[in-house]
Structures are given as structure tokens and as C-alpha cells.
């Protein structure tokens, strides 16, 4: 194991898969010469050349569509969106084409493609740069939706995404890019399967389900509760589609309480889906209503003092947990 950043973990995953499989290529805005708007593709152009690290024109629908066509005919594109906000311009290619082509053609044309980039708020970039897009894409059968919170998961899950046969929406936390963590040596070639949650912290008093960017905040809150003698179990599903319901339900059956923390808006989405599954599958084990701590239900403001209020943070996370524990 060595300590590397989330950003470099993603880069390593791409570089190793490109090394392993000549069908893999990377395309997106600024991914080549500029090494990525967030420097995730640093070094790839130098290592693999402009035929496999392709700077795309500013045409998200266009390069997403080019990727879908290339995937249908045998390549394995990794399409970077400068941020997932801009994927909305390519929504038709992702939802109507990448996600449905295999089904519409009854298995004749698979679309092994990874769409990746930073998701959710990124500090003072306003409402059009701060979408947490997981509810949009989680609603679509045919897509896998992945959102790692640690460097190790980022690398292992991206490798799995690139090797898979299905289209993958791979969400990265913009504010996690610089986070460091232990990652296995390159020689270990670790991949992490989809649909397997990670227990980020073991505990017995309440279950907190969280993925992506808010995960570090939840772990800090858990530390605080631990000092009070309350042990939270923190579960990171890692992939929202497929969703490891079994691990979540098993934890709730043990703790009898559950809070779901997410950055996406509170109406529907994977947050509400998890609550639904917990109440269906662990109803008799619950000692309190399942609660959620989420971003406020408004478009993201620019002003720092307001943005901090809108993004789900330690205060709302802690309040929800206290409520399911009946600690006032």
C-alpha cells in the first residue's frame, strides 16, 4: 500500500487499463495537452499519444455520441465531462442511446463506455456547476452509477468500470480530488466489484448511509459521537446502481436506526430509494423513522456564506442522527 490522492488514483486506473487494453481511449474537453480541467488525466497524453488521449471540441453531445458509436463498434471509450453539470447537454446520448442500445438491439450492440468527471458542488461555482446528478442517472435501467469516496475505491471501481460491458456513469467528488488514502501497489491490479458496499466504520447504535463527497464529513461526525460513547456504523454503497441493499439492511437490523446522507436534492433519487428499501426490508427492526440529511431543496447559491448553508454538512448530519437516537 502507498498513500496517493484520489486524483492520481483515477489517473492510475486509466493508465493501467490503457496499458492493458489497446481498445481503451480517453476523450473529453482539455484532457490532453492541458491534462484535464482538474488534472485527472495528467501524463496520459505523454504516455499514450493524441490518438488515445483526444482533446474534444466543446460539444458534449457530440463527443459523448462519438464515444457511443466507438463503443458500439468495439472500442472502450472513457469520456470525461469537465463536470457532470455539462453532461446534461449530452443527456440524450447517455440516457436514450448508451443506456438503451443493448436492450433496443436485444443484445446485438453493447456499449462498453465510461462517462466520468466531477460531480456536485465544487465551492462557489453557482447553480449550474453544482449539480449532484445521481438522481437523474440512477433512474435509468441500463446504466451503472458509481460514486467513490476514497482513492482506493476510486481506482478499483474505475478499473472495473472500464473492463465491464455496460455503460457506466462514474461520478467523482470535485473536493475529493486532493484527498489522500492508501491504495494497493500497481502490481496488485486491484479491481473492486460493483454492488458491494464498504463498511467505512463499524458501530452498533445507528447506521449512516453515505456516498461520495459528504463521506468525510460523516466520518468526522462519527468520531464526535464516539467521544460520547455512541458508535455509528457508516456504510458507503460505493455504487448506487447496482445498490448493495443487503449490506445496508443487515446493518440496520443490527443498529435499528438509519440516516441517509446525500448531496442530491431531497425529492426522490437514490437517497429516497434507500429509505424505501430499508422500511420495506427492515420495518420490524426499526426503532425510529429513517431520516435523511440532504442539501437544501434549492439551486446552489454562489455566495460562500449561503453555499455552506445549502450543502449538507456536519450540523444537519448530526441533528438527523440525534433525532433517530432520540437524543433531542
Amino acid at each position: 500500500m502507498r498513500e496517493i490522492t484520489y486524483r492520481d488514483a483515477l489517473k492510475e486506473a486509466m493508465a493501467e487499463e490503457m496499458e492493458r487494453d489497446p481498445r481503451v481511449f480517453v476523450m473529453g474537453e482539455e484532457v490532453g495537452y492541458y491534462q484535464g480541467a482538474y488534472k485527472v488525466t495528467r501524463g496520459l497524453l505523454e504516455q499514450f499519444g493524441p490518438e488515445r488521449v483526444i482533446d474534444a471540441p466543446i460539444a458534449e453531445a457530440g463527443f459523448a455520441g462519438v464515444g457511443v458509436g466507438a463503443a458500439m463498434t468495439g472500442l472502450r471509450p472513457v469520456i470525461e465531462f469537465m463536470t457532470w453539470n455539462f453532461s446534461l447537454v449530452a443527456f440524450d446520448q447517455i440516457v436514450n442511446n448508451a443506456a438503451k442500445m443493448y436492450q433496443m438491439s436485444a443484445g446485438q450492440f453493447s456499449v462498453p463506455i465510461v462517462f466520468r468527471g466531477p460531480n456536485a458542488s465544487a465551492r462557489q461555482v453557482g447553480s449550474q456547476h453544482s449539480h449532484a446528478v445521481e438522481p437523474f442517472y440512477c433512474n435509468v435501467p441500463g446504466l451503472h452509477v458509481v460514486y467513490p469516496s476514497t482513492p482506493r475505491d476510486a481506482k478499483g471501481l474505475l478499473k472495473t468500470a472500464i473492463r465491464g460491458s455496460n455503460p457506466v456513469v462514474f461520478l467523482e467528488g470535485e473536493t475529493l480530488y486532493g484527498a489522500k488514502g492508501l491504495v494497493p501497489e500497481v502490481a496488485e491490479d486491484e479491481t473492486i466489484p460493483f454492488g458491494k458496499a464498504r463498511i467505512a466504520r463499524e458501530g452498533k447504535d445507528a447506521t449512516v448511509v453515505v456516498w461520495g463527497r459528504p463521506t468525510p464529513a460523516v466520518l468526522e461526525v462519527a468520531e464526535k459521537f464516539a467521544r460520547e460513547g455512541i458508535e455509528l456504523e457508516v456504510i458507503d454503497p460505493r455504487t448506487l446502481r447496482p445498490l448493495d441493499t443487503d449490506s445496508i439492511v443487515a446493518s440496520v437490523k443490527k443498529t435499528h436506526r438509519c440516516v441517509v446522507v446525500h448531496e442530491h436534492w431531497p425529492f426522490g433519487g437514490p437517497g429516497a430509494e434507500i429509505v424505501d428499501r430499508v422500511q420495506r426490508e427492515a420495518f420490524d427492526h426499526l426503532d425510529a423513522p429513517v431520516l435523511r440529511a440532504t442539501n437544501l431543496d434549492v439551486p446552489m447559491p454562489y455566495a460562500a456564506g449561503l453555499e455552506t448553508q445549502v450543502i449538507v454538512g456536519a450540523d444537519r448530519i448530526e441533528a438527523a442522527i440525534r433525532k433517530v437516537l432520540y437524543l433531542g
Partner: protein
Amino acid sequence: MRTLPPDDPTLTLFSILREDGTADPQQDAFLPRETLLAMYAQMLRIRRIDERMLGKQRQGKVGFYGTITGQEATPVATGLSLSPEDWVFPALREAAVMLVRGFPLSTWLAQVYGNEADILKGRQMPSHQSGRAVNQVAWSSCIGPQIPQAVGAAMAAKARGDRSVSVGFMGDGATSQPDFHAAMTMAGIHRPPVVLICQNNHWSISVPTEKQTASATLAVKAHAYGLRGVRVDGNDVLAVHHVVKEAVDRARDGGGPTFIESLTYRMGPHSSSDDPTRYRSQEEVETWAKRDPIARLERYLRTAEILDDATLEGLEAGIRAELDAALAEVEELGPPARATVFEDVFAALPPHLQRQQAQFLAMPPAQLAHH
């Protein structure tokens, strides 16, 4: 600013066959008799299939049908210009390219019925057929997404170093979409082996081309993207064949992409759900009827003594027999098994769909609603 000369191939209309059925001797390639007859036979075959199937829709036997009457020349000329390894990314009026490239008619028709012989398992509307056997992909109903996909497939071919060419089709309306702009942009930058063909049939349902664009022609747009552009008489199968074959051969030999505007006319409704008499004049339809691509080639073939009444009768009888046999094979089949709705959503059936499938199969089948 550079001014285009008036004889620029994106502004003129390349044609070989005149409306009276004689050929321009400067342009006539004097194709072999078999090729000419194949062009004629395939156009006639598609027309007859469309007539029969629109009738089936009117009888309530199939849910939807889109004819390509009047536009047979472009799919036939394209189908005859391609090699088996080439890829087709169709729009609404190119499903018949599959038939020209040898896809079995009964399988193609089973897709119109969406029945148990349908290789698409009843998932796609008619006119959205696809077949891996002929490298023709599923068309997306939103207008335009297949255009960048065709460019992507061509970039993939270039990356692999194989010699396949991708053909991306669109109608005139699709040239208004961002997808068109993005695809043309990327085709210009990367110059992969792609041929983009716009069948300008003058109408996007009820909206005429002059409400889609103020551009003098659609073909002229190629210049802005650094692409080769050609405008061709889409009701002249010899001209379309010449232009498409040249573009495909050029792309295969590394000469880069071509954007082709094939000027034609949709003689029938947009689809079985449309009544064109509400928005266009009978006079206009009659003017175009005189340019019918099948009648035009027929006049040429009769003058050249390649076709006579007996040959034509033989062709008609052959088509009828093929169509009767294919329909007999598939028309009365039942729907695909209901368990199949869970298949092919993902490469493997995931656990949550296995559970849903088991619950679903434990319930009696829902009854078909009668409207």
C-alpha cells in the same frame, strides 16, 4: 470572404438520369446490366413491401409503419455501394438498407410485428430495425444522435486500422440539431472514414425545409466544417450510386469524409400517424411524382432494352412470392415471451432484475388492453 463558384458541387445538383429517362452521356457510367437491374429490382421490392405493410397497419395488424415511397434510390444506392464490413447508422428512412445488404426479409418483417421471431424481442418500433449481421445499428428516435455515433464508429475503425467505412444518415430536419453540428465538426477535425448522407425530402412531418434553415442548400454547410460536400439528385439512383460509391471508396482509401445532400421527396405521409394533405398541396406531390426514381430508371432500362414487360412481370412475381412467403412465416406468430422484458438491460441479469422477474412471473399475465 471566399465566394463559392456557382458550379460548386454543394450548390448544383449532380444528376445522370433525366426526367424523361434518358441519361446524360457525359456522366453515364454505363453500369453493367446486372447492377442496373439489381438497382431497379431493389427499389421496386422496397416499394412493394412498403405498400403491403402500410396496408397491414391500416388493417390494425401492425402498430406503426413509415414508408419511404419516393426515396428508395438513396438506401438502394448506398446498400449497393457498401462492403460487408461497413457500418450503417440509419435515420427513419433507411431500415431498407439492411434488405439491400442481404438481411432476411422475414426477420426484418418480424421486427415490424414485434413477435416471437423478432430478433429485437419486440422492443423497437417499425422503421427502427437493426441487425448485427449487416452491421446496421438501432436508430434512436430523437433526431440526430446517430450522426456523431457514425463519426465515432469511423474513428474506431481508423484507430483499429481496419478498412471499414461508416455511413451516417439523417433527414433535412436533423441538420438543425446540435448533434449534426458536433458530428460535422468532429468529422472535419479527425477525418475518419465516414460518409454522412442527408436525405432532404423537403418535409420534417409538416415543417418545410425553408423553415429548418435559410441556408442556400444543405450540402453547402460542408464547407464550414472543412468537409467535402456534394449535392445529388436523390431521385436519380444512378447519380446517387455514383456519388455515394465515390465517397465510400474515398473514405476507405483514407481520403476523408464526405457530406452528401440527396435531394428527394417524401411521396407519402411521415408515418402511418400522419395526414400530409393537411399541410402540402396535391400539385407539389404531383410534380414530384413525375420524378419518381423507379419510373425514371424504368424508362432508362426500357430504352436500353434491359427491361421489358416480361422481365418486369417476372420481377413483380418474384417480389410478391418473396413477400407472401415471408409474411406467411411471421404474420401469425405470438408475442415474445414475457420473461424477455428483463433481458439485455444489462450484459448479465442483475440480482434486482432476477427478483423482479421471479415476482412478475408468479403473477398471471396482464391482459392486452383493447382500444
